[in-house]
């Protein structure tokens, strides 16, 4: 998994939140690698820890109630152990971040130009006029019509799609090799979603950056991702190249997720759902297969006591052994 193409290596990363006096891991021992020139998608239900993982990578957690352990290695340095001041040299410059809701993520009192310009002030030595030129160039690059006009506008004067384009321009400002997009299309309507995804793909190809795309939308994953990590209850339970994952899903959770996508041609059929809910941080079983409570019809013996990731095909990793005998509840016997 190592090589010159490796941009970011996440090793045994755990992020725990404090509830009363105890720490509960929302991200539990996650190891992932982002390569140059690829889009790595992280998928999972709400509460599976995917956004927490994203914010951990840029160190945006409140240190008073959060504990981050493990390693995030970037250019030979471990981001986890950096001080806030050291981290400020990485954020914005080397890692760009795109947030979910572009309205609340933009400062309502600042002009678009100022908001994009800000990271240039701290990470580059560009003069004022050069920064302004760069802002216009960025706005052009993210497909905003009439950049000089938009640069002087305030966020509330722009549409949702335009705001998200501005957000992307902010993330791209210093040409960071890594971009983290935390559900960049969730707050947008469907036609705009497609435009933004196309834009992300285009920009990625242009800049050869690595993108970590956090999403719960498998449609988005299929469209843009190169590699996918599926998270459940704080752990990565399956990781594979995108085609492999969709053709050959292994883990019961991944299969259940794919099975629950509404199908165009199955109108009138009941929508397949996954039983139960994601366990809350406090009630999460810390041993055994974390998905087992939601597939109670599967024999307990098929789960590992301490599930680890197994490579089942080249670059395809699955946690626990229960996938071997897994079948959907209404299927009766084993399909394997």
């Amino acid at each position: 998994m190592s090589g010159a193409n490796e941009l970011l290596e996440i090793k045994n990363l755990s992020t725990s939140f404090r509830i009363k006096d105890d720490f509960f891991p929302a991200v539990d021992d996650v190891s992932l690698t982002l390569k140059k020139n690829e889009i790595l998608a992280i998928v999972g239900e709400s509460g599976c820890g995917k956004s927490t993982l994203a914010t951990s990578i840029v160190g945006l957690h409140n240190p008073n109630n959060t504990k981050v352990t493990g390693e995030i290695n970037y250019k030979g340095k471990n981001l986890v152990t950096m001080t806030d001041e050291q981290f400020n040299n990485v954020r914005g410059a080397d890692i760009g971040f795109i947030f979910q809701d572009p309205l609340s993520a933009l400062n309502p009192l600042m002009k678009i130009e100022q908001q994009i310009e800000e990271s240039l002030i701290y990470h580059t030595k560009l003069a004022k006029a050069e920064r302004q030129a760069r802002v216009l160039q960025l706005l052009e690059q993210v497909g905003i019509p009439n950049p000089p006009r938009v640069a002087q506008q305030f966020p509330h004067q722009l549409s949702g799609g335009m705001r998200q384009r501005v957000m992307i321009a902010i993330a791209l400002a210093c040409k960071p090799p890594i971009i983290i997009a935390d559900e960049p299309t969730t707050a947008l309507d469907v036609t705009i979603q497609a435009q933004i995804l196309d834009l992300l793909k285009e920009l990625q190809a242009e800049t050869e950056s690595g993108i970590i795309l956090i999403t719960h939308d498998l449609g988005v994953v299929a469209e843009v991702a190169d590699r996918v990590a599926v998270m459940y209850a704080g752990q990565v339970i399956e990781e594979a190249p995108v085609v492999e994952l969709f053709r050959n899903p292994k883990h019961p959770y991944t299969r259940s997720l794919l099975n629950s996508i509404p199908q165009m041609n199955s109108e009138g059929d009941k929508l397949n759902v996954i039983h139960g809910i994601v366990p809350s941080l406090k009630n999460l079983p810390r041993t055994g297969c974390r998905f087992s409570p939601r597939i109670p019809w599967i024999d307990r013996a098929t789960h590992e006591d301490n599930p680890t990731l197994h490579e089942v095909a080249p670059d395809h990793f699955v946690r626990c052994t229960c996938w071997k005998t897994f079948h959907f509840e209404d299927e009766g016997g084993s399909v394997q």
Partner: protein
Amino acid sequence: MWKTILRRFLVMIPQLFILSLIVFIMAKQMPGDPFTGLITPETDANRIAELREEAGLNDPIVVQYYNWISGVVQGDLGKSYTYKRSVSSIIGERAYNTFLLSLLSAILVYLIAIPLGVLAGRYQNSFLDKSIVLYSFLSYAIPTFVLSLIFLFLFGYQFEWFPTSGTVDVSLEPGTMDYYWSKFYHILLPSITFALLGTTSIIQYLRTEIIDASGQDYVKTARSKGIPMRKVYSRHIFRNSLLPIAAFFGFTITGLLGGSIFIETVFGYPGMGQLFVQSIQSRDYSVITALVMLFGFLTLLGSLLSDIIMSIVDPRIRID
């Protein structure tokens, strides 16, 4: 925008008219009249009756109101019964005194409250925050006249650091440096007293806003750009937190002429607040009504100013 401002001024006319009716009637309902205070055992009852007749106090109240309001419309606020001078000139002098005192007080209030509010919000739940919140509650709970008396007693009489009444040392030549310094010296203690007690709402608002703004998404965006925390506070959190304070600023400006009844009375400072109390005590109707009308107008103007200020500082708000 000019259209809105004009419209707001036009709306003020009926509002002020209703206010004038209420004030006039209430003032007249008070027992006694401006001449009651002149009565001594030697006073000739007929003379008092004559004075009343002359002043028009025996006319029906409708006629009295008509006489008064027709003067007001033409800019004539009438004559003070007590001072025998035009009301506008009396108010003019007092307004100047009050303006000086209030201006210094307001400056001190903002100088104290803004840093404290920001610190309390930034270091939420720390010892510092708790001390500031304690101070703001204490200052809210202490009546103005109590602290004024304590300060006057301690710093005025015991230590003799400050003058105890008046606006200026009367022996000084107006226009000299010493004269202005003396003026400043006279308003210093009342201003400090007022400022120490007037910070509560700004501290509390600012603290809450800072805490609230710190959790907003745009702050995370700012952090994700890798700009120093200090800049995140000054450029993003602080500016957004000031919006509610700006919403009050119009009232602060017009309030500069309102004066403080307690402070001015305790410190013997001849300003609007003191004038108001005195005019009520001496049933000086023309001064009472003029002052209440002025306060009413200032309040309405304050709300208009606040709206204009809001439209300037917050690009989302526009007055068409």
